[in-house]
């Protein structure tokens, strides 16, 4: 099935996304596989309960055996029987920089993935197609990391204080100004962790009586932030503008459920690039919908900042739009910039409000200085301010 261009005049370039539909036999075989796995799971559980097979999984303490069990039997069914068989695909430790090639630690299992043992051998120069190192800033070149090394020596590694108390360093101010300039907005604020940026700022922006329209495939951090805020959440089909428009119309016409009072605010949560599907948000259509129905747009550019667009400014640039169209621009520094942390950018009132009311500013530590320096140098390189044309 091809998703074609629905409103050609909004898009400056053609926008074609291909999503292959899985052929029927693959779907049937997958379900059969799950079925067989489940039957074997029940068989094994039966054998374990009757002592015919050894229990590998950790058990509750003797003294606490008469407490209410911590995990329901069924919750762990999937983990015990299906996940354990293929567990060695994930969580593989590496022992070098996650650059284009890295060194993998060899890991074997003697008892079918219940425990792992490191043989001590290191597999060198494995080609890396797994880390989110889009622009290659995860490097150990001494010249590149010169400023980071200096800052680490000067500042140390920790902060030991929150933003509002004693944790705002001059580095943070410098970084925020740079981020604002990079994105072309008025002001920005940085936080120590990308996941926490979403889960702590969405509750600050919306509350009870507001409506959140979120895409089907939004990341857990967005979902958690939406749930913690206490607003009503409605989900629209992935990248489907008709579904979104219908929800918007119904929301404004019928108001809040039961009381039919008008909603205080409507906010649309979308991501720039969806990590699970690989699809790009249809930004021009969403912006036109948002203008028509007076909703607010929150764009999470975790994967797309730095990677998409002619000069790396994200999906806003990719579609040739103005950053002022999006009300809240959010992103993380983990993927393209090779560091850690997140930011929120937008108009000055928005950022001032977040400086005073964000949960992270009051209760969580700020970003650590060497990491901030890494982001500064990466951004300067992208903006061409470091004198080279590498960016």
């Amino acid at each position, binding site marked *: 099935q091809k998703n074609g261009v629905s409103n050609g005049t909004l898009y400056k370039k053609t926008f074609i996304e291909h999503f292959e539909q899985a052929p029927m036999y693959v779907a049937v075989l997958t379900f059969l596989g799950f079925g067989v796995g489940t039957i074997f799971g029940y068989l094994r559980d039966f054998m374990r309960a009757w002592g015919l097979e050894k229990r590998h999984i950790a058990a509750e303490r003797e003294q606490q055996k008469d407490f209410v069990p911590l995990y329901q039997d069924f919750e762990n069914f999937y983990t015990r029987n299906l996940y354990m068989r293929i567990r060695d695909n994930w969580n593989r430790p590496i022992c070098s920089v996650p650059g284009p090639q890295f060194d993998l630690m060899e890991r074997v299992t003697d008892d079918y993935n219940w425990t792992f043992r490191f043989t001590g051998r290191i597999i060198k120069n494995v080609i890396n197609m797994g*880390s989110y190192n889009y622009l290659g800033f995860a490097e150990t070149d001494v010249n590149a990391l010169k400023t980071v090394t200096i800052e680490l020596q000067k500042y140390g590694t*920790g902060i030991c*204080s929150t933003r509002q108390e004693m944790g705002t360093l001059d580095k943070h101010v410098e970084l925020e100004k740079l981020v604002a300039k990079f994105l072309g907005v008025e002001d920005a604020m940085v936080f120590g962790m990308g996941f926490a940026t979403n889960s702590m700022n969405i509750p600050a922006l919306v509350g009870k009586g507001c409506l959140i329209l979120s895409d089907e495939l939004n990341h857990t951090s967005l979902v958690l932030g939406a749930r913690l805020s206490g607003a009503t959440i409605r989900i629209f089909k992935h990248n489907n503008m008709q579904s979104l428009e219908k929800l918007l119309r119904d929301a404004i016409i019928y108001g809040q459920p039961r009381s039919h009072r008008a909603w205080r605010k409507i906010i649309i949560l979308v991501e720039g690039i969806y990590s699970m599907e690989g699809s790009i948000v249809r930004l021009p259509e969403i912006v036109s919908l948002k203008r028509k129905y007076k909703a607010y747009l929150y764009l999470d550019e975790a994967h797309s900042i730095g990677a998409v667009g002619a000069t790396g400014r994200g999906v806003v640039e990719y579609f040739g739009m103005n950053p002022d169209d999006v009300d809240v621009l959010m992103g993380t520094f983990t*993927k393209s910039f090779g560091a850690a942390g997140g930011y929120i950018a937008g108009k000055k009132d928005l950022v001032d409000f977040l400086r005073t009311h964000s949960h992270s500013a009051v209760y969580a530590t700020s970003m650590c200085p060497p990491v901030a320096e890494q982001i500064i140098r990466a951004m300067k390189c992208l903006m061409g301010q470091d004198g080279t044309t590498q960016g």
Partner: protein
Amino acid sequence: VQEKEELIEEWQPEPLVPPVPKDHPALNYNIVSGPPTHIITVNGKECINFASFNFLGLLDNEKVKTAAQASLKKYGVGTCGPRGFYGTFDVHLELEERLAKFMKTEEAIIYSYGFATIASAIPAYSKRGDIVFVDEAACFAIQKGLQASRSNIKLFKHNDMADLEQLLKEQETEDQKNPRKARVTRRFIVVEGLYMNTGDVCPLPELIKLKYKYKVRIFLEESLSFGVLGEHGRGITEHFGINIDDIDLISANMENSLASIGGFCCGRSFIIDHQRLSGQGYCFSASLPPLLAAAAIEALNIMEDNPDIFRTLRDKCERIHKALQGISGLKVVGESFSPALHLQLEESCGSRENDVKLLKRVVDYCMNSGIALTQACYLEKEEKCLPPPSIRVVVTVEQTEQELDKAASLIKEAAQSVLN
């Protein structure tokens, strides 16, 4: 259809953010130039640092910095991936092993942000329909974790074991009415070792007794007490001499004593292993940058090699606690061995805003004379039980006796001049 179009035209949303007054205290925050170590440069003025939680003075330690530099050369800065997809480095595994060994538990798990540690750990175990008994003075991260878990929350008065027992008894009578439901409802008590909001410790031995009597599990949050209490810095379990297996989960953040960033949970494998698949801040977020993990390992080494710094820290806390007694207008809140004390106004002047302004004048007086203090900041509308406004005084091992005495006398002076 005409009506619908009209409705759409007429609807006006609230502005995205309400306007913030220009003189809001949080907008004019202190900018620190240079590292936040013992001598800190705030807003251009050099002061002695009594505000950062740098209890063991490891923020400026050369060995820690060297270890971080070595790790920087080897691994770069970021990990570019969550733990599941090639974001697990050998330093992470080493740090988890070291922490488990240090705390004498079976396993430990690391998070990349201190706030996310307890806020992800609680919802991994406690779901809708379970019951959690939590202290009133629990910190905000715990409150967010409880909110995300959607369990039934029962607050008991701060450190009041009688109140807790009352609630547990009530729960027991409820259980008798519906035994089938009771058999599947999990029960938890969430307490902090050293409370951030009040500076006192929780009565852990009584809690253990209640645990076995009423069959509830205990989650202990040791952000302030890790690296502070106990003979070797193992926290409140060592302080009271309790077997660590009695506590189901200990969660702490490495941002206070270990002068790094991130957090960890430790306990038995039975409990910790579950978080590797269901801890949201663990599975869906990038892992801790390796230079911070290396710094934490080095900090642990230092803690293990010099167990007498804990004794020194405790002595300094007692000293300043004694020195700050008897200031007119301010009362000291917190245990004598707690390194983070609060100074609250003895009599409030009516509204919280005025109290905050008054305390700010005290803080400004001290800052102008070379002692950096801070007010404890809270989000007024979001906290369940808002503590009264206070000034936080933090004691670190690096402060000398003269500095402690100077700080105490300066605070006395400030209180005299501002409050009288």
